[in-house]
């Protein structure tokens, strides 16, 4: 990895790592007596370990000019592996907390093991760890191919990937230590948020610098979505996380907003994290890997345009549907509901465009589990966007809100759409970049597919049942005009569904473990091949002439 960096980039890496180590030290010193010191130490330790790594390869020969003849895929390789590792962690913790709702005593009297601290490890682990790494890795791959341009340099992609994973590490370890600002899906505290801004600016600059050097006149639709993902997540992240730390020696901060304004800002962020992190970025993935794998051109250019701008414009209005019947002014609730219902149009345009792309390739869908992953993802995307529009209607929301139905809806999207399109894309991209004819085992891909489908269905059906039963029990009146059920009655009724959900989630998590194993074995297969031919020259013709000359 270091041998791929030029001498100047190695120096730059050392300078940046020194700066990060000093920042970590400063946080650790300023935060002595506070939990912040732990994170300061963690930042410093990460930087120092990486410095040793850079120094150990510092005198390796520099990469030659021939590197410009190839795309730069090593960061994509690392990102894919990191995404799969985070998938196992995030989904494993998710299944663990699902079991905690069945067996609440399994916290061992330890603060870090309680549901409230582990739940954000699950949500951040899957959204940011798994989803984010997959987006970064695939975006580098797609960007280069669709622009016919190499990444601008070798240092900045590593900065983005490693810096982003440092953010994920600070987030997950922080929750266990009790560091959170309680904003859902934006829990990390001020210093981690600032660090993510730095990482994100470099990420955007990579995108822009590569696009500026593209050999294709048009920017491909996948890149529109990846750019919307990068830009809008930046806007959302900065506004929602505006806060005043109590001091530079403390992890604790207070949000700039309060009450109703904070609620609206939070759900403007929260719902658009779904829109631009979990939808736009993954639509970018879909628009490249699905047509490539199917060997079919995208069905409609115009549907692509309408879908893209519809999603970019309308989603940003939809957040207030999380706040129906609350103290938020009704005009905002109504606007949110209206736009949420309208969102079905661009969402289904994107889904239909993908499914129609598969016309003429349905035999491949039947035979190829990788393509089937992507096809099923699009089906779940269509289903969960329909369900989302439906649940945003005020009358429906009065039943569904605060219940497990919301949890089921989120997982129909997160498991059915986000995770499946990611697994499909990873199974497509891994053999390509490691130059293998296929994955290590196609049977394991098949097994992963059926585990994922079974797990998602069990999960979603369990939560539909529990959510609707919960909602109905809360509003049922006895003949005497009093509430028929106590809260605890509704909780007791949930138990069988919580067991079913944990089993379904378990299926899904086991699938991720199989996926990680399969990716790992494919990489081993690739490196074994390289080891068998140790000094094999790059150009076969040249090799033959050398042998002839002996």
């Amino acid at each position, binding site marked *: 990895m270091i041998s791929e960096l030029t001498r100047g980039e190695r120096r730059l890496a050392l300078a940046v790592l020194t700066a990060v180590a000093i920042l970590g030290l400063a946080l650790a010193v300023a935060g002595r007596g506070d939990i912040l010191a732990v994170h300061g130490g963690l930042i410093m330790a990460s930087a120092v370990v990486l410095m040793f790594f850079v120094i150990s390869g510092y005198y390796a020969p520099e990469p030659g000019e021939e590197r410009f003849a190839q795309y730069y895929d090593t960061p994509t390789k690392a990102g894919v592996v990191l995404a799969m590792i985070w998938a196992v962690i995030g989904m494993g913790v998710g299944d663990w907390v699902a079991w905690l709702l069945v067996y609440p005593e399994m916290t061992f009297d330890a603060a870090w093991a*309680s549901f409230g601290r582990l739940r954000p490890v699950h949500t951040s682990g899957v959204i940011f760890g798994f989803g984010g790494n997959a987006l970064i890795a695939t975006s580098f791959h797609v960007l280069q191919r669709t622009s016919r341009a190499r990444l601008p340099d070798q240092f900045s992609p590593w900065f983005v990937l490693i810096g982003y994973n440092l953010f994920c590490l600070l987030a997950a370890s922080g929750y266990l230590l009790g560091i959170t600002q309680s904003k859902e899906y934006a829990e990390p505290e001020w210093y981690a948020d600032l660090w993510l801004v730095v990482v994100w600016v470099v990420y955007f600059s990579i995108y822009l610098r590569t696009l500026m050097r593209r050999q294709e006149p048009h920017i491909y639709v996948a890149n529109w979505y990846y750019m919307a993902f990068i830009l809008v997540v930046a806007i959302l992240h900065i506004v929602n996380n505006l806060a005043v730390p109590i001091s530079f020696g403390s992890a604790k901060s*207070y949000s700039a907003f309060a009450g109703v304004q904070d609620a609206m800002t939070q759900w*403007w962020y929260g719902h658009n994290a779904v829109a631009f992190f979990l939808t736009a970025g993954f639509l970018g993935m879909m628009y490249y890997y699905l047509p490539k794998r199917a060997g079919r051109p995208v069905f409609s250019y115009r549907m692509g345009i309408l879908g893209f701008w519809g999603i970019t*414009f309308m989603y940003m209005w939809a957040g207030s549907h999380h706040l129906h019947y609350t103290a*938020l002014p009704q005009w905002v609730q109504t606007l949110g509901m209206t736009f949420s219902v309208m969102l079905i149009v661009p969402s289904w345009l994107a889904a239909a465009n993908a499914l129609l792309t598969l016309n003429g390739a349905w035999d491949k869908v039947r035979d190829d589990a990788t393509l089937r992953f992507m096809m099923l993802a699009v089906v779940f995307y269509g289903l969960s966007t329909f369900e989302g529009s439906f649940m945003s209607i005020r009358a429906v929301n009065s039943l569904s*809100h605060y219940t497990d139905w919301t949890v089921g809806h989120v997982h129909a999207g997160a498991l059915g759409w986000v995770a499946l399109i990611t697994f499909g894309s990873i199974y497509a991209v891994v053999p390509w970049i490691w130059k293998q004819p296929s994955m290590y085992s196609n049977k394991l891909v098949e097994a992963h597919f059926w585990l994922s489908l079974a797990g998602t269905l069990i999960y979603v059906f369990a939560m539909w049942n529990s959510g609707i039963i919960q909602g109905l029990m809360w509003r049922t009146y006895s003949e005497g005009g009093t509430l028929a059920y106590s809260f605890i009655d509704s909780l007791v009724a949930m138990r069988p569904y919580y067991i079913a959900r944990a089993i379904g989630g378990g299926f899904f998590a086991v699938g991720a473990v199989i996926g990680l194993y399969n990716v790992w074995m494919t990489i081993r297969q690739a490196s074994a091949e390289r080891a068998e031919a140790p000094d094999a020259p790059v150009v076969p013709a040249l090799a033959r002439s050398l042998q002839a000359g002996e």
Partner: protein
Amino acid sequence: MFGIHQKLERNAIGFVIAIIVVSSIGGFMEIAPLFTIHETVEEAPDMRLYTPLEVAGRNIYIREGCYACHSQMIRTLRDDVERYGPYSLAVESKYDHPMLWGSKRTGPDLARVGGKYSDAWHVAHLINPRDVVPESIMPGYRWLAETPLKVDDLSLHLAAQRKVGVPYTDEMIANAAADAYGQAMPDSPFAAGVTARYGDATNVRAFDGQPDRLTEMDALVAYLQVLGRLTDAPYQQTASTEGAKP
């Protein structure tokens, strides 16, 4: 229209600007007016501030992720109001940085839990929820009763909140640590200052049942007991609009 787009998608900078403009409209139209339209937040002249002990308790509530399972927002629905009490007003969370309205009721809503149970019930419930509610699936928080509360930075907490708009006075900020002790130790010399600064309605009690120690349990129970009790406005609102809401 598609012709224009053909030009747009050849221009990276133009595309970036278009994304930023198109995506910014929704948030701007929905969020900015909430700061300027006066009726968004009701008037409640009797609205009290959280005491330093309650602030500390609120931060424990945040730290432990209680908001993941408990909402603090009673909707304007008949069954919500009959189960939990008068529906929540915007003014009640006007000093909540951040708000803790929540999004899921794995456990019941807590917006009006203040005064509903005794301190002893809360302590027993937090130590092991199944001792008082056998069917509960809430985790136990036994260690809270043994962990001393960190008070040395409470002044910083109040000062930071003043920066974002909570009207703490200099005196409140300067006495934050003493007031935290006083509120949980009614027999100590610090107790009188708490009601003087935060009002006579402030709860001054040994919340965790140990009058000689200030623990995280004191802070969390003090916070839970003040939920829904910072202003009378929601109770008056319900009286005047009784039956008007579905």
